[in-house]
């Protein structure tokens, strides 16, 4: 049997969940024996194979039109979609801005911060993604496996990935279920 293909990407998150994935340390050697690691933000290949992958992993919530596109592409190219970390599962820290309007958030970020030089300017270009309300992945595309945590513990990630690598859907409970 061919090894299951795994691809990942990060959206509105902090990359912390991918760092936590790397915290599985030498167990990553075991993991690559079981899976074929394809596109990730920290490897050369940047997009999941057009021919599709078995498992797609997304970190971070969806906060603009670009993230939405990436999520939809990943969904269309994977069989099992995993939402990794609190931002992907719930919206997480970026979702705090949902308590304000997008205009207020942009003004705060680009004009009002103490570190802003000069008058500050909200970037606007047709090439830039359009900001939206921050959404959990499952608000935009169907999610099959949720791994909450900020970030999820390396042991929990290893448990979930090794279950997936062996063709099982991981069931998080007891010590493995942590929202932080």
């Amino acid at each position, binding site marked *: 049997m061919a090894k299951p293909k795994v691809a990942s990407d990060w959206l509105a998150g902090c990359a912390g969940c991918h760092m936590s994935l790397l915290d599985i340390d030498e167990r990553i050697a075991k993991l690559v024996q079981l899976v074929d690691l394809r596109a990730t933000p920290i490897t050369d290949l940047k997009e999941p194979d057009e021919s599709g992958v078995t498992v797609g992993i997304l970190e971070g919530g969806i906060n603009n039109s670009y993230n939405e596109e990436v999520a939809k592409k990943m969904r269309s190219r994977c069989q099992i979609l995993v*939402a990794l970390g*609190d931002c992907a*599962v*719930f*919206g*997480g*820290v970026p*979702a*705090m801005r*949902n*308590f*304000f309007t997008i205009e207020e958030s942009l003004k705060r970020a680009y004009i009002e911060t103490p570190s802003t030089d000069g008058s500050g300017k909200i970037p606007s270009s047709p090439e830039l993604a359009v900001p939206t*309300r921050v*959404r*959990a992945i*499952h*608000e935009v595309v169907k*999610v099959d496996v*949720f*791994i*909450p945590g*900020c970030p999820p513990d390396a042991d929990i990630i290893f448990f979930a990935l090794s279950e997936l690598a062996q063709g099982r859907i991981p*069931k*998080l*409970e*007891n010590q493995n*279920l942590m*929202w*932080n």
Partner: protein
Amino acid sequence: MVNLTIDGKTIEVKEGTTVLNAARANGVEIPTLCDHPQLTPYGGCRLCLVEVEGARTLQPSCTLPVNNNMVVHTDSEKVREARKFVLTMIFSERNHFCPYCQVSGGDCELQNAAYDEGMTHWPLQPNWKPFPVDASHPYIIMEHNRCILCRRCVRACGELVGNFTLGFEERGADSALVADLGLPLGESSCIGCGTCVQICPTGALIDRWSAYQGKETDVEITKTICQGCSVGCGIEVLTRDNRLVRIEGDWDAEINGGVLCDVGRFEPKTDERERVLTPMLRKDGALKAATWEDALAVISSKMKSSNGKAAAIASTRLSLEAMDAFNQVCRAAGIQSVFSSEESLPTAAAWKIAEKVGKPFESKLDALKQADCYLLIGEDLTKDHQVLSFFMKRNLPAGASLIHVGSADSGFKNYANVILPVAAGKEAEFLGDLKTLLNGGDSKATAAKYGLNEEYLAESVKLMKSAAKPAIVLGSRYDYKQPVETCQAALDIANAMKAIFISSKGGANSLAAAQMGMDDAIDLTGAEMVILAAADDKFSQTFMKKFEKVPFLVVFSSYVSPLTASADVVLPVRNWLEQDGHFVNLEGRLLSAKAALEAPQDVLSTFEALEKLAAGMNVKLASTWKDALKTTSAVMVD
């Protein structure tokens, strides 16, 4: 008795038991949020829904009384689905993002409930409506965004503390916790007891002094007693890495049943006094660090040379062991005048009567909790011995009445039926006249005599006469002109009415101080030397003034104060959280305190310091306090 079946188990419980309690008593766990063992059932959160055979819908087990032959399922598919749905709805209502919440990771009952149901995500996302955060209170932060509207805090504020500050405004999703009629919490009638913080299942009410400092899962918990006053409330001290994180009321404690006042809960955390860390001796006019040996040698030689022309004063916060040792060391050195820091004034009066009467006349606190009419004399219990005022105030909505013979600006002014402002010094006489009025007399003349409103006085008499379980509470106050007479007059009323009688006494161990004979007014005339075992007590300016002209002052103290600054010898001692010991509370109950923190190096407990002093003076200490209590403590309280 009623028979019912829960999850296939046939059980027998008392009629009137709720399904929830019946299940729990028989080892079946049903998750809850708005329910709390100390509060009346409310049925607000719906997490405890169960399936009852024959019932049209799922039923909240916390408010459902058992019925004969009832068949209940607590773990059916339908119930589990309903639980998840209830949690989903609660999570979708406000901001329940766990990573940036103080109670996340063990302390949050909402999070724990979600874990128990195996929820990996929220099927419905929040509606993103921001609510305000009220940080106007010195101790408490009200975070409406974390509130699940369970009303535990509202019930605790009313049912347990009797303060009725908290309530709810608006309807539906706009419902919000509110203090008084919409005041910021810090400007409201809140007394800062923190019971609401302790009972909140989520992070909606948090204590600003301990927030984000530790979780239930990584703190150490020591069960001990509060030493703030003579009530002796049971507390849990949460510490981490030898640092005080938080103090909570012990829900299982018989005396207080979980409630605490701000003195017990928050003051220790906000205490910013500087510690005394090493023994100090005055040399050439200035205090210099010294060794224990040198400091103790100076004290013992001075004690010998003063030939009994010395006085000794012990704080009423000293443990029985320390108080006993202090007494023995001082008396062995010929010091006849051993006082307590309170001069035992409030306690001594009752104690003197106890010695005369020879039989118990005070009641236990349980009787106070059951009474239906309170005549409070003197002390404003909303400011001192506050937990006693909780016991009284919580009974008022059920029809209990409260008459305060105190000043017009009494803290009870929003709660009492009547306030009778009798001039200081007139209390004893007034109580005598009140006793006459109870047997039928002219309230008009009595009212005129004390400048009271006649109608109010007549109302007081009526309330007292119609009470089934009246209670006379004599507060400790230091300015009674005739403490013994006042106490006797109050006791006479209690006897005439067959009412219970309780006096609030003073500090943690003031009853013991009186029992050990330290009950005279402090007199330092002619004393060449004064030894003050101050422990961690905070003294008034008037008290400290007494020591200004003392030729040679020795102070055992945990903290730097004007007293240590003017002392000739200062010995560093542990504070209340750092030592074991025993205390006798106002009802004569022997309580044991446990150390929750380790003391700084070179800082001894007052008892250890006295042991060293005794050894240096060749005084053999005997543990006499147990015998002393056996013969005395039963005398006062029944």
